[in-house]
């Protein structure tokens, strides 16, 4: 027991508590403590006084430090325990499912766009050609329309001659050998205008070397009003002849082509003398 007391009083137990011993000495102290209850209780007393001493000297660290330090411990806790025990097949599946799906979608979308583009090009070509035909048709119709308009206005003019009250319609009757012949001459006294109705020209056709010549009898003398032909075509016109002021009568003779200065009365065809 004396040894134990000397051991306690050597001060080695205090150094043990202060952590100021070599590993061999520490083991020795632990060995002594397990063998001798007195050493163990003395160690307990020293430790207790060190705890109290530390508590007496305690300084509260800054409040925000608690959170910081606990976080660093708890983060490590999560690293060590939760992550290693977590299986992760569910996450894996999700990734594998979405990736190809997305690829397919874009592939199909691209194909659809291409098909749509081709289809619209075809339709556009179709519509364009239709538009072209419609345009040519429209131009043709416009031309036709213009022609009709021209014809209508021309006919209006012709009708106007008959409606115009200033025009007198004079019928020339066949003479001598030409009793079956006849023609109409329109004369406006106020406008000094003479026209012949080619549509109502009942004369035999003239040959290449001769032409019909229209004469007006003014003061008993014949005045040439110009030449005209009778052919199978060109029958719709009102032909305007030379102007004359006071005709007493009209006559038509057959003359050499180009007309004569004075009429050959033996060749008289029609007149209203």
């Amino acid at each position, binding site marked *: 027991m004396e040894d134990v007391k000397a051991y306690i*009083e*050597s*001060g*080695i137990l*205090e*150094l*043990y*508590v*202060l*952590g*100021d011993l070599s590993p061999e000495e*520490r083991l020795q102290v*632990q060995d002594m403590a*397990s063998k001798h209850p007195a050493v163990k209780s003395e*160690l*307990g*007393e*020293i*430790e*207790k*006084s*060190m*705890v*109290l*001493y*530390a*508590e*007496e*000297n*305690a*300084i*509260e*660290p*800054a*409040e925000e*430090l*608690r959170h*910081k*330090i*606990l976080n*660093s*411990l*708890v983060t*490590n*806790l999560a690293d*060590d*325990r939760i992550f290693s025990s977590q299986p992760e097949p569910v996450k894996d599946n999700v990734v594998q499912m979405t990736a190809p799906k997305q690829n397919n979608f874009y592939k199909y979308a691209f194909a659809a766009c291409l098909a749509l583009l081709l289809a619209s090009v075809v339709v556009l070509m179709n519509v364009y050609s239709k538009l072209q035909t419609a345009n040519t048709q429209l131009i043709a119709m416009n031309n036709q329309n213009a022609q009709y308009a021209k014809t209508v206005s021309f006919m209006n003019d012709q009708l106007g001659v008959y409606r115009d009250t200033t025009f007198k319609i004079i019928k020339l009757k066949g003479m001598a050998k030409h009793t079956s012949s006849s023609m109409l001459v329109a004369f406006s006294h106020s406008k000094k205008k003479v026209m012949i109705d080619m549509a109502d020209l009942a004369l035999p056709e003239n040959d290449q070397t001769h032409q019909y010549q229209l004469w007006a009898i003014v003061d008993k003398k014949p005045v040439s009003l110009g030449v005209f032909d009778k052919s199978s075509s060109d029958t719709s016109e009102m032909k305007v002849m030379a102007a004359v002021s006071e005709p007493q009568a009209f006559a038509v003779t057959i003359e050499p082509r180009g007309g004569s200065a004075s009429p050959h009365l033996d060749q008289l065809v029609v007149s209203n003398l």
Partner: protein
Amino acid sequence: MTKRGKISLSEEELVHALRHKEKVAAEALYDMYSASLYGVIVRIITDTPTAEDVLQETFVKIWHSFASYSTDKGRLFTWMVNIARNLAIDKIRSKDFKNQNKNQELENNVTFIDEQRNTVYKPELLGIKDLVNTLKPEQKSILELVYFKGYTHVEAADELAIPLGTVKTRLRMGLIELRKYFNES
């Protein structure tokens, strides 16, 4: 000071919870011992940010190397305070810390030296001053060196130019005085 309810467990419960790395163990550990450990660290390292870093390192080390603690070796606090003291001493003797001090301006150095010599008035040390005053001067200086400054008893013997045996005896007498003081109060 009572901004939140502090968690407190018996030492057995705490040791059990720490072995299983339960979250409540970390909180209880901090609430029960942070002030005591910080008190020790601050007396070795006067620079507050560095002392706070060492406190964090201490808790991280306790947390990770808890497997190496066994109740046969003694009380939990004894094990922890030695970790804190060793980390603090390592820090103050490390190259970084010495360089940091070398780089300080002359004015700052004066303050630093003053702090090292404990001549600066610190209200949190008021209670301890009273306590340490109940000790004889020679016991006090030994405790200061070994407990506050992290000296080994060999270094303390060198510093005070006294035999090793005397260091041990004075340390023991000082601790017995403390024991008496706590038993009285």
